[in-house]
């Protein structure tokens, strides 16, 4: 295991959470912040914590565009 594989693995993990679509996937399962705001899910429950993590990851989308582009470029050019 190198720092490079660790970086790729971390990037893929963050992408796995951030790519989930609110409107098409999460809203149908009640996994958006809306269900915490209207009181149907407690923010401190396990489900509420998961909603919080997904919501936090969605703020990482813009930096992830650049990070994905860099990693794709390095992988395609240098292997």
């Amino acid at each position, binding site marked *: *295991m190198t720092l490079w*594989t*660790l970086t*790729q*693995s*971390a*990037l*893929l*993990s963050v*992408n*796995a*959470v*951030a*790519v*989930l*679509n609110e409107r*098409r*996937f999460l809203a149908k399962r009640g996994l958006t912040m809306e269900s915490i705001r209207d009181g149907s899910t407690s923010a401190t429950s396990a489900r509420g914590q998961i909603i919080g993590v997904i919501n936090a990851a969605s703020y990482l*989308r*813009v930096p*992830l*565009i650049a990070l*994905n*582009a860099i*990693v*794709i470029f390095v*992988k*395609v*050019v240098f*292997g």
Partner: protein
Amino acid sequence: MSALFDFKSFVSTLALFVCACTYVKLRAPGLIDSHRTGFRGVFWKAARVGERLSPFVSALCAYMAVQTLFG
């Protein structure tokens, strides 16, 4: 060598590409939606896959993360 010649690297690169296109489309839809055919249509197709099949793309990303680290 290029990641395109190693299947594992290719799949994880593809997953990252789909994710990146999806994020660009969520941020600036006009940039992706204006070109649906030809070479730039590839980005639109990737973005469409990323938003419609997000649970599967997410599963692929998670699987490739484990494969990259331990496989």
